[in-house]
């Protein structure tokens, strides 16, 4: 299936610091249509489009927007741009290359759910993205597309940029609220859900950058136009961040339903003519898939049965020479370091998991270790209060399934851990 450029239509083409350039390539046509047709029309198109959230949880966007639109009291719109899932860089590219699209989409959200306060929470390391967003917001305000009277609608909408400061957990929506409110970025218990009581206790629409960037497309093409791409249950296109051992690492936009093999082919295939060992699909919170999965269609419904996930769209490729257990060890360390420590299963579980994976990666596995990992994983998945703990064992257990038994140098044990990439050890 071919690469398409819908979300990426302007990336690398239009000057990202110029409102005029954005408008000359179709920018702000969607906002004009929204001003004309009104919120009820937007909500029904969005629901009919089948757009699912791109931040990891795949929640239907239309349902979320309606819940906030129907909530009582002051409402808020938050764009989640904390992107910290290892292997993920799509939101950075969207914000750096097409910042006005993020601003326009948030404005559409504001008009639709009747919110006046918008906020983008940008990962602290993304300085260029934050600067470009601020510039875009500035220009939009001066052009009357943002502020006290948005595009002559008589409705107000403002956007503020808040920079994170280096904490993966702050991408979790309720941790993000705490972070913005000047507290430690620890997740809250749900319910209440953000649509009921979110930022500052107000009903809040939280969407990922990529989710929002799909909205102007839905508005301009209608639900049926949007559904021309993708499958019945995974509608539209998806950005995949392909990295690791491929010839051309990068960001690729393809319709949902494209197979893993087709995506890898777009990226030039496994580098240096080598064979594929595994793909870590979905980042640290994702799962390892073996070479037998190349025919798998990349859809929410296609990945679920094999325990996979689209997740953040990270697709990390390991060639035959890579040390699988070195990578698994890095993932285990990631979760141990990023756990906020608030609940016991995750705090203790990520620590124990790291200890066991350290044994496995150094060839000192004990016979009971695989079972221990499975038990810890089950406890974290069942009893953690947020998605970090619930997904912390996924990659580790999927690696075990791919390579049952203790690792040795021949199947990617520690002896390969210090080779140059691509070096056969």
């Amino acid at each position, binding site marked *: 299936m071919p690469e398409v450029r819908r979300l990426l239509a302007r990336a690398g083409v239009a000057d990202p610091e110029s409102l005029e350039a954005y408008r000359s390539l179709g920018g702000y046509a969607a906002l004009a249509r929204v001003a004309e047709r009104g919120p009820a029309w937007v909500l029904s198109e969005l629901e009919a489009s089948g757009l699912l959230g791109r931040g990891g949880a795949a929640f239907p966007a239309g349902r979320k927007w309606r819940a906030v639109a129907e909530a009582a009291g002051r409402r808020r719109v938050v764009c989640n741009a904390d992107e910290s899932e290892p292997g993920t860089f799509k939101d950075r590219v969207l914000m750096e290359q097409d910042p006005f699209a993020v601003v326009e989409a948030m404005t559409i959200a504001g008009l639709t759910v009747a919110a006046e306060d918008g906020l983008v929470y940008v990962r602290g390391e993304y300085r260029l993205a934050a600067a470009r967003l601020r510039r875009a917001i500035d220009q939009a305000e001066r052009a009357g597309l943002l502020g006290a009277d948005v595009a002559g609608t008589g409705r107000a909408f403002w956007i503020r940029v808040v920079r994170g400061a280096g904490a993966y957990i702050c991408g979790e929506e309720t941790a993000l609220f705490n972070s913005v409110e*000047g507290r430690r970025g620890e997740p809250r218990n749900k319910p209440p859900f953000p649509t009921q009581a979110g930022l500052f206790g107000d009903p809040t629409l939280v969407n990922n950058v990529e989710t929002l960037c799909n909205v102007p497309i839905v508005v301009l093409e209608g639900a049926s136009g949007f559904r021309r791409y993708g499958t019945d249950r995974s509608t539209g296109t998806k950005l995949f961040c392909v990295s*690791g051992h491929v010839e051309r690492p990068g960001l690729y936009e393809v319709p949902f339903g494209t197979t893993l093999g087709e995506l890898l082919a777009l990226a030039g295939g496994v580098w240096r003519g080598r064979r594929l060992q595994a793909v870590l699909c979905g980042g640290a919170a994702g799962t390892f898939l073996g070479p037998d999965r190349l025919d798998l269609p990349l859809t929410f419904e296609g990945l679920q049965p094999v325990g996979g996930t689209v997740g953040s769209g990270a697709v990390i*490729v390991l060639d035959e020479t890579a040390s699988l257990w070195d990578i698994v060890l*890095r993932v285990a*360390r990631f979760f141990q370091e990023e756990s906020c420590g608030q609940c016991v299963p995750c705090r203790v579980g990520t620590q124990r998991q790291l200890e066991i994976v350290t044994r496995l990666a150094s060839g000192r596995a004990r016979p009971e270790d695989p079972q221990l990992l499975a038990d810890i994983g089950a406890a974290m998945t069942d009893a953690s209060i947020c998605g970090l703990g619930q997904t912390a064992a996924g990659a580790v257990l999927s690696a075990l399934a791919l390579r049952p038994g203790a690792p040795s140098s021949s199947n990617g044990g520690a002896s390969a851990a210090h080779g140059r990439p691509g070096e056969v050890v």
Partner: protein
Amino acid sequence: MPIEPNPPAPASEREREAVDRALARVGAEPRRSDLLPLLHAVQDDLGWLPRGALHHLADRMNLPFPDVWGVATFYALFRLDPPRGTILHVCDDVSCRLRGADVLVRDLQARYGPPRRFAGGAHGDARNGRGAAAPPAVDWETVPCLGRCEEAPVAVAGGRELGHATAGVIAAALGQAGGDA
């Protein structure tokens, strides 16, 4: 997490001014939700978050000091001790490892001494790097994915993002950044 020492250090003149400048930009009555941007502003100004500055900030915001301390210590990007040279962050996460980050980290260690944070979660003591008397000009640590994996391996040297990083590329960037944080 660093422990708050007792008794607290008083803010120096410079620290007090940095906090006051940041607060002036926020305007009238600072709210608790201004805390994160304020911490960024103070660190941008001073290069780190001295304890005295945090005490002064807490006072001016009418917040208990432990609340401010609790937030400042929560985030990896906030520095609670003075930089020992130009700040260098080297990604050693999955995609970068597959593209040679492990070798890069070894090369950098040979040049600049052990990083603050090293594989396995152990915290390297940078003071052992070149001796406390002559601090290394580079204050470096390994960090999780920087979100530029298509250019792996990736580093940030003195605020400059470097794709396809090698020890040479990094040394050149550090040379341009000078010895300052």
